[in-house]
Each structure stands twice: as structure tokens, then as C-alpha cells.
């Protein structure tokens, strides 16, 4: 069923490419990756780390939320004039009518990792450890709401690597049902040992900067990122302006906990639902931002899904060679890359690709592209452990 579009009226992003949308855009245009070799792990891999997070303080009044994940949240809220836009929106809608829907996979779990190293002789954790305000998933929501002075509805979605894509669908439903008038969506995920050693245990971390769609790809480069977007409804009788959320699709693989369906059936289902909700045909989509993690199974499964839904001409690329796989923040990071694509009419290549996997059928972009025809609509894929799939369609007003 077609949905009514929501306009992205403000957004902010921070990742390994730097602070702000401009830093990400420039890195994409200059083909400059943010990945660096890991310094503090017991195995060799590359990471997409954000500089300056540890030194970035929270508000004194919110110091109980102090953890690296919330520090990255504050850094992101302070970027791209996002707070100013939220303040303007708050005047328009009121503090209790703007919903906040955020994704994270590990929230502030780094704090729990740290205090386990500090257990006393009885095995007890330090007395000042505050689980609720740091590790717990809702910490990111509570911090963001209090930092922005908002008191409306909200949620943290934690569905592994689809978390901050699904927030767009949830926000749309809450606005449609009348529980809020506008929404802030986003996601923040910092690199934790749970993620690095966990993916390493599954033999899914790359020993090189990740190479999505390459025949020699050997896994992911874990990254960290924050991103927020303010979503508002179009005013009746006024023409739309700006990049819009036009459609969303969500599905489950029902196949395996840590391996995607080999034929990509769940992913194809999510893309088809997104197209239906945007009321668009496949030939009206000019770019696909792949989930493209660079694990052998993901890229092959996703390629099968795309072949199932799209013709082979639609340009595709994974941008994880730039940012790394930012896990619970991947959805919002790539949604905002899609915003940059639409605003700047520029398609990013599939960075780090040396030898295209000959078994892939999709049209993978081997070089940055200034398209001849206007890019009006793009689709962004996010999939995760547990077989969770989400596809989002963003576009210019039609």
C-alpha cells in the first residue's frame, strides 16, 4: 500500500570520514577511505574509527549517561546544525509531539566490558557502575531525548545491522497513527570488543580494508558512526521540497541466525515491499546502496536478491569500503549517503574493488559517476543477524 512521504528537513552524520555531511561527501568524491589498521586488538583487521570521541564531553547535567556511545551521540547532535533545526521544530510542534526512534546494536556495552576487568575479589562490579544509563539499549534514547529537551514517544530498535534503517519505518507508523507530528530518527554505534571479537570468532572480519563485491573479499571492516535525521510531514497544498522517505520494506529470512538466505529471498521481499509502499517501479530507481558487507555470503545473497527484483542495469555500490560496517548505525549512515547522492547527483563507486566477483550479476559501480539523467529515487538495503531485512527508498519530490 503506498505511503505518504516524509521530508528529511535536517540531518547530521559523523563517521570515520569525519564530522558532518560535507566531510563524508568530500571523502566519497575524492575516493578517500576512512579505514585504518586496528591498533589495540589481539588479531589483525581494519576499522573505521571516529576521532575525538573520547575527549568529547557530555553536558554536565547529563553526566550519568557518560559512555563512549553517548559521547558519539552528542558529537553527532552538535554537527551539521542539527540542534538548531530541532529547536526550530520544537517551537513548531512542542516538546511532546516529536518522536525519537534510534537504532544501536551494542549501546554503551563498552562500559560493562570495562567494569568486568575491575571486579573485586568477590567478583562484584565497581559500586559506581550504572548499567541503566550506559549499557542498556534505552540509554541512547534517554540521553538523546534529554539532550534535546524532548518528551514525546520514542524507541530504541536493536535488530543488529538493520536497527537504524528500521527506525524510519517505525517513525512513519507512529506519525501516521497520530502518536507524534514529526520524528527524529537515527542511530549510534561505537566499536566494542563484543563486536570486534564476536565477528572475529565467526571468521567474518577482514584482514584488509573490506572489499565488497570483490572476488577476494574476506569479511567486514567494523566501523562506528552516528547519524540523525528530522522527518516532517509535507504541508497540504504545498509542493514538496528536499529529499523524502518514500517507501520502506521489512522482512525476516527465517533461515539462519548469522548467515543470510543464499537466494536472498528475505532481502528481495524487503525491496519489493519498499517499491510497493513508494508506488514505484524498478525502472524508477536509479541507484542501489548495497548492504554490501564484504562477507562472501552477504554479497552473493544480496546480488541474488537484486537480480530477482531489478534488471541488471540499475547501478549499485556498497559504501562500506569508506566507512566500514557501522553495524547498528549502518542504516542511518547509508540513508544519509543516499541523501547526499540525491542532493549532489553523484553516484559513489564500490570502493576497494580490485577484481569484481564474476559470479555477481548486478551492475556494480567501478568508478564514481556523474549520472547523465537525473537520479530521482534510490534504495538503501540493511540486513542483520537473526535474518532481519530492511529496505528504504529515498527520492526527490515527484
Amino acid at each position, binding site marked *: 500500500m503506498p505511503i505518504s512521504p516524509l521530508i528529511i528537513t535536517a540531518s547530521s552524520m559523523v563517521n570515520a570520514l569525519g564530522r558532518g555531511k560535507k566531510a563524508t561527501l568530500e571523502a566519497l568524491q575524492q575516493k578517500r577511505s576512512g579505514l585504518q589498521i586496528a591498533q589495540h586488538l589481539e588479531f589483525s583487521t581494519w576499522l573505521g574509527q571516529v576521532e575525538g570521541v573520547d575527549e568529547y564531553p557530555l553536558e554536565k547535567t547529563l553526566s550519568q549517561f557518560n559512555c563512549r556511545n553517548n559521547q558519539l551521540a552528542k558529537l553527532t547532535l552538535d554537527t551539521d546544525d542539527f540542534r538548531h533545526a530541532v529547536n526550530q521544530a520544537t517551537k513548531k510542534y512542542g516538546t*511532546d509531539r516529536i518522536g525519537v526512534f534510534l537504532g544501536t*546494536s551494542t549501546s554503551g*556495552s563498552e562500559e*560493562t*566490558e570495562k567494569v*568486568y576487568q575491575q*571486579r573485586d575479589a568477590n*567478583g*562484584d*562490579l565497581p559500586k559506581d557502575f*550504572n*548499567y*541503566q544509563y550506559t549499557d*542498556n*539499549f*534505552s540509554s541512547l534514547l*534517554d540521553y538523546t*531525548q534529554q539532550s534535546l529537551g524532548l*518528551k*514525546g514517544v*520514542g*524507541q*530504541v*530498535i*536493536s*535488530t*543488529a545491522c538493520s536497527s537504524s534503517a*528500521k527506525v524510519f519505518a*517505525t517513525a*512513519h*507508523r*507512529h506519525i*501516521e*497513527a*497520530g*502518536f507524534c507530528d514529526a520524528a527524529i530518527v537515527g542511530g549510534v554505534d561505537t566499536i566494542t*570488543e*563484543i563486536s570486534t*571479537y*564476536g*565477528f*572475529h*570468532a*565467526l571468521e567474518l572480519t577482514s584482514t584488509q580494508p573490506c572489499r565488497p563485491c570483490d572476488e577476494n573479499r574476506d569479511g567486514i571492516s567494523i566501523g562506528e558512526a552516528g547519524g540523525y535525521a528530522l522527518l516532517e510531514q509535507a504541508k497540504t497544498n504545498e509542493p514538496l521540497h528536499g529529499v523524502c522517505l518514500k517507501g520502506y520494506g*521489512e*522482512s*525476516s*529470512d*527465517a*533461515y*539462519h*541466525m*548469522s548467515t543470510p538466505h543464499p537466494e536472498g*529471498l*528475505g532481502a528481495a*521481499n524487503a525491496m519489493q515491499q519498499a517499491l510497493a509502499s513508494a508506488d514505484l517501479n524498478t525502472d524508477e530507481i536509479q541507484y542501489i546502496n548495497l548492504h554490501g558487507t564484504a562477507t562472501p555470503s552477504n554479497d552473493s545473497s544480496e546480488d541474488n536478491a537484486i537480480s530477482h527484483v531489478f534488471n541488471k542495469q540499475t547501478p549499485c555500490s556498497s559504501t562500506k569500503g569508506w566507512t566500514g560496517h557501522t553495524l547498528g548505525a549502518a542504516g542511518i549512515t547509508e540513508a544519509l549517503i543516499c541523501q547526499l547522492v540525491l542532493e549532489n547527483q553523484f553516484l559513489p563507486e564500490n570502493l576497494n574493488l580490485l577484481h569484481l566477483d564474476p559470479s555477481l550479476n548486478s551492475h556494480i559501480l567501478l568508478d564514481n559517476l556523474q549520472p547523465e539523467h537525473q537520479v530521482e529515487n534510490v534504495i538503501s538495503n540493511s540486513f542483520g*543477524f*537473526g*535474518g*532481519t531485512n530492511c529496505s528504504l527508498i529515498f527520492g526527490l519530490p515527484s
Partner: protein
Amino acid sequence: MKAIYINSLSIAAPGLVGLEQATPVLKGEQAWQSVEFPKLAPQLLPANERRRMTNYIKLAISVADQASTSDKSLGAVFASSYGDLYITDHICNSLSQTPKFISPTQFHNSVHNAPSGYWAIAAKSTAASTSLSTGDSSFSSGLLEAVTQVLSTEKDILLVAYDYPATAPLDKCVDISEPFATACVLSLTKNNNSYGSIKLSVNNEEKTCSQCRNQSLNQLQNSNPIAQSLPLLETLITKSTNSVYLPYLNDSKLKVEVQQ
């Protein structure tokens, strides 16, 4: 807002394992007694899968299975305040050893949507599924999310809410003393088993949350964030008309108007 019907219910908690055991207590005909919670073995799962699962995951799957009697392929909302604290403890313990090593199974079980993923596989459901938390108000947020999904999809939605106590040392950091889970199927249409309809609104005036009518349940209500649903479950089981106030974000309340 359109009224949304609650057409199926399930519950699992100490002394309230399944509707048959829970109904007389929720109706106020019997006092609740603190008894040991049994080991659950949801039969929907193959035995080898069950062995890989934690008590937290089995708790969620059990109530999901019991609530979705007529259709297991529904879209689903999974709500849990704290995630799987047993896994958190094990992984953080492993990471404090030298060399650091995480079990691959424990890692993929550590994602907040592990119960949702196992449920999809066991139920063979490819429908959309989400996994959320808003801390102590996670049941309310799950109910809100499920209602918005029923309204937007015009299909029945399965809500599953659950939390399980931590072992030491995390038990001192997290205020959960008893396992508690509940699940229900929400629908635009009333069926023969319907427990009534609900309408939701966020309320900033009401200062206190509803308490259980059966006062012997007060201890259980405060033992687990999801057990805050008990006053609503009492209203639904007795098929009463009543407004229930549940904890929500920023000290506000979720007002649930139940009608028959």
C-alpha cells in the same frame, strides 16, 4: 484511533505458567504464590536448537508460541528492557580473559533480536519483525509499536514482551528478580476469544501507574519491568471495561482504555 482487539493472550511467570494456571490468579480467585519458575522447553523448537538457547530466548519463544495459536506467520514485535543478561555476563567474562575469545554461538545470540530470529526460523515466518527496548517502559513501547503496525498493515500482529533475571555480578545492577513474559495477538477485527479492545494515548497528568487488583500480585508486578503489564492482563482476562495506566517514557504514562 481505531480500536484494536486483543484476540489471544499468553503468560509465563513464577506461579503463572500458562493461561490455565494464571487465570484464577488474574481473576482474583486465588492468591499468587511465589514458586520456583520451571525450566521451559518450547516444543516448537527442535531439541538440538533448544540446547543452544538460553532461558531468556526460551521464555520469549514459549509465550510467542502459546499466543499465536491460529497463525504463526504474523508480523511480530519483540520487547525486552535489558536483553539477554546471561549472554552479556558470559561474553564480558570471556573478554576479561587472556586471550580474549567469544563463542561464535554466544555472539550471534547476543543480538537483541536473537529471540525474534529464532522465532522466525521456528515459526517459518518471513514477516517483518522488530526488537525494541525503552528500559522499564519496554512493555508499553511494544504495545504502541504493535498497535501502529496493526493500523499500517491492517494485519494481525504478535506482541512478545519478556525479561529474565541476571546472574551475579550483573544481578546487583539490574532490577529484575523474577522471569516474566507475556504475548498477545492484536487485530483490527474481533474474534470469538477476544479479550476486548484497546485504545492507547500518552498521558502526562496521571502520576501513578495502575496497581494489580489482586494485591498478592504486587510483589510480582515490581519484580520485572514486563510485569508492569499485570494490571492490564487482569483487565483483559476478566473481560472488563477499564482504563489502565502503564509506565512510559519521561515519567509519563501510557493510558490503555480497554472496552468490551
